[in-house]
C-alpha cells in the first residue's frame, strides 16, 4: 500500500487575516517549517505510523533548521526565537503529526528547558548545544505507573551518597524514551511523602542500572517512541542533579512550557484535518454534485473553521503574554484544554466527511484523530485542566 501523501501544498487556514498580527520573522519561521513538513515529513509519515516507528532520519534536518529548543538563547546554539514563533513551529509540526511535534516538545520544553532553567552553567554549556544539534536526544521522566495526574505522589527515589546519588524507581509513558541518550529524571531526595524534596537529575541512558523498553500495542502516536524506564541502583555523580530544581513546582514549570507548545500544536492538527476535509468535499461527487455543495458538509466545515479561528486568536494572545513574561499556568491550561478538544472534534468530523476513504492511511484525519486522543490525555488531561482553571476562578481546589 502506498502511504506517502499526494496532497497539494498546505497553505494554512486564515479566515480573519490572522497573519496581519504576526511579525515578519514569525511568518518566515512558520513558512520555513511548513515547507520542511511538506518536503520531508509528509512523504514518510503514513508509513512511519503504520510501522509504529519514529522517523529518526528526520532528526538531523530538524536540528539543522533549528527546530530543537528554538526559543532558547543563541549562546547555546539555539535560534533565540520569541514564543509566538516557537508556537508556530509547534503548529506546523503537528500539522504533520502529533508524534513529531511531541518529539520536538520533549527535546525543547522538557529536556533543554529544565537544563536551561535549573541547570548549572557547566550543565548548560555541555548539554544544550548537543541537544540543539540533535547529537543527543532527550526524554523526561516524571510520570510513574501509579502517578499520572498526581506526579507529587511519585515513589522514585534519589539517595545521596558520599560521592553522588543512587536512583531507584520506574517511569512510564515516556516520549522519546527508547531512543534517548540522556534522560531528565525526577525523584524524591527526602521523605516519600514530601513533594518539596523532588529534584531533577541528568541521567545519560547508558548509565549502569538504567533501562528503557517500548510500550507496545499503541493505537495512537504510533510514529513516536513511548517507553517505560527502569532505574535500578543507578549511580550518578554529585553534579548530575539540576542545582536549581526543587519541589514539584520544577517539573510543573517544564510542563507549562510543553503545554504551551501543545496549545499551538493542536491548532496545526485541526488545520490539517479541516484542509483535507475542504479539499475532499470539493472533489468528491455524490448525487451529481460535490459534497461541498451539500448543507450538512458546509455546516461541518464552517464549524471546524470557526473553532480553528477562535483558537488561533486565543493562542496568539497566550503567546504575547508569554513573551511579555506575564503568562500564568492557568492561562496555558485553558488554551491546551480548548485547543486539543477542538482539534479532536475537527479530526473526527473530517474523518466522517471523508466517508470510507477517511479510514485509510493515505488520508490524514484518522491518524490525527487517533493521535489527538493521546494529546487530550497527556501533559495534563482535559479534565485536570478543567480543575486547574476551575480552581483559578473559584479559589477552590476540587482535586
Amino acid at each position, binding site marked *: 500500500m502506498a502511504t506517502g501523501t499526494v496532497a497539494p501544498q498546505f497553505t494554512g487556514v486564515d479566515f480573519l487575516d490572522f497573519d496581519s498580527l504576526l511579525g515578519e*520573522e514569525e511568518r518566515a*519561521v512558520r513558512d520555513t517549517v511548513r515547507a520542511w513538513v511538506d518536503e520531508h515529513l509528509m512523504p514518510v509519515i503514513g508509513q512511519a505510523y503504520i510501522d509504529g516507528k519514529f522517523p529518526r532520519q528526520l532528526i538531523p534536518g530538524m536540528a539543522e*533548521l533549528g527546530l530543537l529548543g528554538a526559543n532558547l538563547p543563541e549562546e547555546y546554539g539555539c535560534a533565540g526565537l520569541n514564543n509566538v514563533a516557537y508556537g508556530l513551529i509547534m503548529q506546523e509540526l503537528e500539522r504533520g503529526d502529533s508524534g513529531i511535534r511531541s518529539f520536538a516538545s520533549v527535546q525543547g520544553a522538557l529536556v533543554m528547558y529544565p537544563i536551561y532553567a535549573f541547570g548549572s552553567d557547566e550543565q548548560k554549556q555541555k548539554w544544550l548545544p548537543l541537544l540543539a544539534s540533535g547529537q543527543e536526544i532527550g526524554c523526561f521522566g516524571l510520570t510513574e505507573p501509579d502517578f499520572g495526574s498526581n506526579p507529587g505522589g511519585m515513589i522514585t527515589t534519589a539517595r545521596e551518597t558520599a560521592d553522588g546519588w543512587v536512583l531507584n524507581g520506574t517511569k512510564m509513558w515516556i516520549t522519546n524514551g527508547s531512543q534517548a541518550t540522556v534522560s531528565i529524571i525526577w525523584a524524591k531526595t527526602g521523605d516519600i511523602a514530601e513533594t518539596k524534596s523532588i529534584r531533577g537529575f541528568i541521567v545519560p541512558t547508558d548509565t549502569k542500572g538504567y533501562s528503557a523498553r517500548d510500550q507496545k500495542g499503541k493505537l495512537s502516536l504510533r510514529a513516536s517512541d513511548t517507553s517505560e524506564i527502569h532505574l535500578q541502583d543507578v549511580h550518578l555523580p554529585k553534579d548530575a542533579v539540576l542545582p536549581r530544581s526543587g519541589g514539584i513546582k520544577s517539573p510543573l514549570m517544564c510542563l507549562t512550557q510543553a503545554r504551551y507548545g501543545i496549545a499551538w500544536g493542536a491548532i496545526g492538527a485541526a488545520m490539517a484535518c479541516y484542509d483535507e476535509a475542504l479539499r475532499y468535499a470539493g472533489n468528491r461527487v455524490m448525487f451529481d454534485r460535490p459534497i461541498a455543495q451539500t448543507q450538512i458538509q458546509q455546516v461541518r466545515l464552517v464549524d471546524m473553521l470557526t473553532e480553528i479561528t477562535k483558537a488561533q486568536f486565543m493562542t496568539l494572545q497566550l503567546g504575547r503574554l508569554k513573551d511579555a513574561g506575564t503568562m500564568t499556568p492557568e492561562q496555558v491550561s485553558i488554551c491546551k484544554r480548548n485547543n486539543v478538544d477542538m482539534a479532536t472534534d475537527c479530526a473526527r468530523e473530517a474523518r466522517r466527511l471523508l466517508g470510507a476513504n477517511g479510514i485509510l492511511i493515505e488520508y490524514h484525519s484518522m491518524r490525527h484523530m487517533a493521535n489527538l486522543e493521546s494529546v487530550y490525555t497527556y501533559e495534563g488531561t482535559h479534565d485536570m485542566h478543567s480543575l486547574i482553571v476551575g480552581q483559578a476562578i473559584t479559589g477552590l481546589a476540587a482535586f
Partner: protein
Amino acid sequence: MKIAVCIKRVPDTELRFSIGSDGKSLDQAGLKYDLSDFDGYAVEVALRLVEQAGGGEVAVVCLGPDAVQETMRKAISMGADRGIHLRADTIPFDGLSVAHALAAELKDGGYDLVLFGRMATDSAAGVVGPMTAQLLGLPCVTAISHLDIADGRGTARRELEGVAEVTTFPLPAVLTIDEGIARARLPSLKGIMAAKKKPIETREAHLGEVRLTVESMALPPERTGGRIIGEGPDAVPELIRLLQTEAKVL
C-alpha cells in the same frame, strides 16, 4: 566572487486568486506574496558559488514597493549578505523599464555575476535579465541548468528541446537560472534571526519609460467534463471526425 541576484516578489501561486474589479489586475484580497520560484534557484546558485569559492558576497536586488523587503529578507535569511531595494510604487509590466532601473544600480557595483531567475512566475516574460545584460553591455546566457565558474570564465549548460547546449563566457556576465540546477534551501531559523541584522539599502528606482501596459486579464475558461463517445475500435472513426471537425487538432 561578488554576485548580485535580482529577485521579484510575486503572488503565491498555490493560493486561489481572482481578477480585480478593474479587469486588469489581481484582486488583492487574500493574496499572499513570495519569492518567485526561479529567483529562489538563482539565490541558491549564488550562495553555492560563494561557498565553493570560499568567500565573497551575495547581494539581492529587488524592485517594488516597501512590501518587497519581506521577500528580500527571505533571500537574505537563506544566506545572502545584504539587500538593495529599488523603491517603486508598483512593478511595471514593461520589462525594459525595470531593466533600466536595475542596470543603473548594477553598472558600477563591481559584480562578477548578475543572476536572475529564468522568468518571474507571475509575468512569465523572461525578458528583464537579457535586457539588463544588453544595457550593461555584458554577455548573457539564459535558462541555465548547470553552471561551472573557474579562472574568470563560466561554462553553462542549457536544456533545449531534445538537445543540451553548452556555452562558455567570460566574467562578468548576466545569467538567468532555470529549474533543476539546484533546489532552493529553506532558510534556517537562525538564518531568519540573522537576516534582521543584515543591511537593506533603499534607493528610489530610476525606471525607464513605461511603454507596455496591461489592458485586460481573463481567467482561462472553466474546463467542461470529458465526453465518452464509444468504446473499442468502433469508436475510432467518430473520434477522428470530432478531432478534425470539433477540436480541429488534426
